[in-house]
C-alpha cells in the first residue's frame, strides 16, 4: 500500500496533453487543487497528512509553472514522448537564426552602454513578438504534424530568446537602480 507514482502534469489538471492549452482552466484548477492540498489546510493534521500535503502542493506548483510557460510546456510534452530537446548539447542552429541572435546581442550591448531603457524595452517587445510566432510554429509541429524533431528545434530557439528576455529584464532593473 504505497502511494501511487506521481501523475503527469497534464493529468493532474485534467487537461489533454497538447501544446494548445486552456489557460483559464489551468489557472482555475491550479487554485482548486491548492485549495485541497496546501499545507496550510493541514497545519494541525497528523504528520502523514502534512507530508503528503507538502508533496502534492509542491507537485502542483511545479506542474503549474511548467504548463503555464510555453517553452517549458513544449519541452515537457516532448519529454513525455521521450524526446530530449538537447538544449545544452545541440548547438547546431540555422544560420539566419544565429545572425539574428548576433544582431539582438549587439543592440542590447549598445542600449546597455547608453543605459537606454526605452531601447531595451522595444527590443524586449521585438523579441517577444518573434517568440510568439515561433510558438505558433511549435503548436503546429506538436499538435498537428506531431513532428518531434522540428518541435525540439523550435524549443531550442525559444530557449535562446527566453534567455535574452531575462537578460534584458535584468539589465532594465539594473539601470533603474
Amino acid at each position, binding site marked *: 500500500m504505497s502511494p*501511487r507514482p506521481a501523475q503527469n502534469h497534464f493529468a493532474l489538471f485534467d487537461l489533454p496533453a497538447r501544446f494548445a492549452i486552456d489557460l483559464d482552466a489551468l489557472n482555475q484548477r491550479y487554485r482548486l487543487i491548492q485549495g485541497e492540498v496546501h499545507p496550510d489546510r493541514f497545519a*494541525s493534521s497528523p504528520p502523514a497528512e502534512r507530508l503528503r500535503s507538502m508533496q502534492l502542493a509542491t507537485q502542483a506548483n511545479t506542474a503549474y509553472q511548467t504548463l503555464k510557460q510555453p517553452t517549458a510546456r513544449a519541452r515537457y510534452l516532448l519529454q513525455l514522448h521521450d524526446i530530449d530537446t538537447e538544449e545544452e548539447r545541440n548547438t547546431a542552429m540555422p544560420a539566419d537564426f544565429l545572425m539574428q541572435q548576433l544582431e539582438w546581442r549587439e543592440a542590447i550591448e549598445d542600449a546597455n552602454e547608453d543605459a537606454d531603457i526605452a531601447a531595451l524595452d522595444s527590443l524586449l517587445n521585438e523579441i517577444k513578438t518573434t517568440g510568439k510566432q515561433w510558438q505558433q510554429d511549435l503548436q503546429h509541429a506538436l499538435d498537428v504534424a506531431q513532428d518531434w524533431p522540428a518541435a525540439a528545434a523550435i524549443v531550442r530557439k525559444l530557449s535562446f530568446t527566453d534567455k535574452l528576455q531575462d537578460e534584458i529584464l535584468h539589465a532594465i532593473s539594473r539601470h533603474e*537602480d
Partner: protein
Amino acid sequence: MALLQIAEPGMSAAPHQHRLAVGIDLGTTNSLVATVRSGMSTVLHDEQGHALLPSVVHYRPDGEVSVGYPAQAQQSLDPNNTIVSAKRFMGRGLKDIGVTTHLPYRFVDAPGMVQLETRAGIKSPVEISAEILRTLKARAEKALGGELTGAVITVPAYFDDAQRQATKDAARLAGLTVLRLLNEPTAAAVAYGLDNASEGVYVIYDLGGGTFDISILRLSRGVFEVLATNGDSALGGDDFDQRIYCWILEQAKLAPLSAADTRLLLTKAREAKEWLTDHAEARITSLLSSGDVIDLTLDSTTLSELTRQLIAKTLSPTRKALRDAGLEVSDIKGVVMVGGATRMPQVRQAVAEFFGQAPLTNLDPDKVVALGAAIQANMLAGNRSDDDLLLLDVIPLSLGLETMGGLAERIIPRNSTIPVARAQDFTTYKDGQTAMSIHVVQGERELVSDCRSLARFELRGIPPMAAGAARIRVTFQVDADGLLSVTAREQGSGVEANIVVKPSYGLDEDQITEMLRASFGSAEQDKQARALREVQVDAQRLIEAISAALQKDGATLLTPQQQHQIETAVATLHSLSQGEDADAIKAASDALNHATEAFAALRMDASVKQALAGQHLNTLEL
C-alpha cells in the same frame, strides 16, 4: 471498541475547543496584536485602551524593563538605554546598517548580528524584540483568558533568511509558538480582500517605519496568490524623519549634538511630518541641552522637496515587481496602502500618479497587517472559519549555489510560489575528486560575495572518476514556512548529504537555551513534565484526527484488514498515552503515523479528484 469511544463527540473536548491564536505585527515603530473572536478579526487593546504598542524598550536604572509608551517617554531623557526601531538591526551586521552616526546607541560589532550596549548589559536586537513580543503575549493572554496556542508574526516580504530567523528567535525567547512568519503585505491583502470581497489583481504598497514592501496579488474567491514581491528592507518612515532632522540642523546651523538632543530633534521631526499630513505648515520649536533654541517653520512644499528622492526610491522596486509579474500598470485593479508612512500626502500622490488611480485607504494602515495575521493564525491553529481562505506566497529572494569562480548559480528564482522543489545537476572538475563543497546563497547578484551566505556543507564519498563524469544532483526544497533544505546526491553511487538551512546569522541553539534559562530559571524537572505533557497532547490530537479520518473514509478507501491495522496502532497509542513513558508514547505516535501514510495519500488524492470533478463545495457556491 476503544476507537468509537474516543471519537465520540463530547468525550474529548480538547481538539474541538477554540484554540487561542493571535496575529502579531512586530513593526519598526509600533507593534500590535490581534485575534479572531466570534468570527471577527479584532485588535487587542492594553488596559489604557491603546491598540498600538510603540516598539520601544527602555532598560531602567532600577533594573526593570519597560516597553511601549512609558519607554517612549524616556527616549530623549535616556537615549542610550532606550532602544527604538530595533527591527532595523534584526539579523544585520554593523556594515549592513550603514551610517549610524545619527543614532544614539553604542553599537557592538558581533559576528552576524550587531548588538547594543545598555546599562542592562549588551543586548542583541533579538532580545530587545523579545521584550516587545513578551508584552504583546501578556496583553493577549490577559484579554483572552488563557494560554496561547501560537502566533503568526508578520515580517517584511523583503526580509532575507537571517532577518526571518532572528524574528523566530525573538518569538521563542518570548515564549511564543510561531505558527508561521507571514509577509506583511500578504497579511494586509487578506484583511483587505476579505473585508471588501475583492477580485482581481491588487498591489499592496507597504511603507512602514523602517521597511518598504511592494506585493502584487491576484485575489480570486478566497485564494490570495502572490504574483511578485519586491522592496527595500532599509527604507521607511524613519528615513523621512531623518531628512527633516538634517534640514533642521542645516537651517539652525547646529554643531553636532548630544545623544539626547539628537533624539529630541528626531522626535520633533516625526511630529512635524505627522502634523503636515493635515496641515500646510508645521512649527518646530525646541530648547536643546546645549542652550540652542530652535524655532523653525516647515511647510509641505519643503517637505515634498526633502522627501522626493526617498519616495522615488519606492517606485523602482514597484516597477521590478510589475515586470516580474508580467503585468502593466493598467492590469492593476486597486492599490492598497499599508503602513503609517503612507498617510503622507506626498506618498499618496506619487502612488496615485504612478498607477493612474487613487490608492485605497479605507482600512487603518496601522492595523491592517495585524488583522490579516490574526485570520491566518486562526486558520493555522485549526479553528474552523467561514472564510475559506488560502494564501499562496512566494520566496522574495532567489536561492542558489556557489559555482566555480565565485559565481552564484540560481536554483530557485525569486517569486517562486512555495512549497517548491528544484533540482539541478552538477559535476566534478578534477580527476578523482571525492568530495564536493556546497555553498548555499541567497540574493539576485551574480557574484557570491554580493549575496548572503546561508549555509555550507560537504558531499563526501564520491567514487573517484574522471573530471566531469560524476553526476551530482542538488535538490532545493522550500516548505510552506519558507524553510529551505538542500540535498546533494551522486547519482551513480547514491552517496548523499543534506542540510536544513538555518542561517548562521541567527542565534545558535545554545545561546537561545541560555537566554531562556536566564529569563525563566526553569528547573530540569519542569522541562521533563512539560515534555511528557506535550507528547500526550500530541498523541491525543493524532488519535482524534485519525479516528475521524477512519470514520469518514476508512470504509471506502481501505480494506477491512488495512482498517484493522490502523485501529490496532491507534489502540496501542491510546493505552500508552495514559502512562508516563514519554519515549514510548513518542514511538507509538511515530508508528501510527507510519501506518497511516498511505491512507493519508489516498484521502488527499480522492479529495483532489473530487475537487476537479466539480463536486466540491467550492464550486457549488457559484
